[in-house]
């Protein structure tokens, strides 16, 4: 067993940098400011106001925009009297033929299933807190899932890919954009918003049953 240094008596007064493991006194920065690790400059705590409200707003917006993105027309193409509509579902099904079929599942996951799952997990774990109740059972697991899925949620990358594809085909045919395209574009804003407002450290503390 390790010898106990006096500073180790109260673990709640300490924080370890997640990036370089440096042990620090935990000092919560003033509202609107951030605390960074003095050694590697990794973000430790960002004391943003209304972190629960903002995160919930982002998750609810994602859910609404996703419904619009799936059910409204996405893009249409007209050339020499021929008309072709493509929905988001058609884009997902693009790889369905032949041996690249598993890619269909991956694309569906990246652009629809994972963003929706994250939104649901965030709402499930944070809504009770917003309503002043105790966290729901499994709230910690649910928030952990939302954070683990974050790099795999690629709705904003998809819409940039669509923009590139459109530049390729606009010379060949008339392209018209539907509401679904704009819903996906708006998701970029929501993703940027979440990246700037969500402080994991703050939310974990709020979810901690010992603190309620």
């Amino acid at each position: 067993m390790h010898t106990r240094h006096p500073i180790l008596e109260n673990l709640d007064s300490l924080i370890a940098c997640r990036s370089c493991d440096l042990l620090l006194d935990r000092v919560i920065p003033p509202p609107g400011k951030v605390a960074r690790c003095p050694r590697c400059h990794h973000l430790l705590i960002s004391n943003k106001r209304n972190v629960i409200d903002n995160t919930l707003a982002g998750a609810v917006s994602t859910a609404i925009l996703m419904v619009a993105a799936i059910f409204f027309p996405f893009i249409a193409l007209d050339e020499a009297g021929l008309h072709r509509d493509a929905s988001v579902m058609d884009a997902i099904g693009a790889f369905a033929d032949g041996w690249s079929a598993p890619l269909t599942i991956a694309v569906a996951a990246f652009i629809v299933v994972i963003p929706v799952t994250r939104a649901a997990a965030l709402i499930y774990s944070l809504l009770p807190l917003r309503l002043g109740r105790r966290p729901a059972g499994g709230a910690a697991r649910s928030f952990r899932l939302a954070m683990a899925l974050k790099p795999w949620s690629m709705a904003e990358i998809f819409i940039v890919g669509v923009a590139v594809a459109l530049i390729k085909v606009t010379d060949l045919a008339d392209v018209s954009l539907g509401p679904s395209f704009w819903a996906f574009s708006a998701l970029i804003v929501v993703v940027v918003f979440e990246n700037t407002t969500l402080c994991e450290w703050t939310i974990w503390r709020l979810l901690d049953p010992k603190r309620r």
Partner: protein
Amino acid sequence: MATAGPQETITAREAGLVSCNTCGTLAPLGSRAVCTRCHAALHSRRPHSAQRVWAWLIAGIICYIPANIYPMLLTNTFGRVSEGTIIGGAIELFEYGAWFVAVVVIVASVVIPVAKFVVIAALMLGVRYGSRLSAHRRMQLYEITEFIGRWSMIDVFVVAILTALVQLGFIASINPGPAAAAFALSVVFTMLAAQSFDPRLIWDSLEEPQDRARR
């Protein structure tokens, strides 16, 4: 803000503590297997980081080869099929005069993947054998790599939407080539390599020479 000066730097591991990778809760090292707050498995350093990083990285590089050799797009215009590789597609865009898009495609599908292979390998070698780059510089490279890796997936989505959209029978139709799946796998494997890398190792390798001197 934080108070530990350069003279008194001590890591959580040196203090006999482990910080939860998920929620940051501190616990005495070895006292329990899972975090009390979020139930994630507790590890002071990501387990078998080196093996996992090299395995995912090599898988990513292997998949990147067919991704460039085979066609990404099979374009059928008036009965003639032309095959477009990643590089071929970008060159075609240059010829159209779509410079900006061509640069986006080249950056997303060639520069970023290759840079990621190089950076991850260099970080691993730096941890093992020491590096001429400062720990700060290496940390920045790691953060950029982790942030930007997902954006390589753009090309896969370009293929998906072109395939969905351009289905005008005899006039023009586009179908995905075998490179699309290989490229997607390469991006996923490289993302997993970056996620398996433990940035703490960069800083641990700085501390070790002092430890050796002390002994």
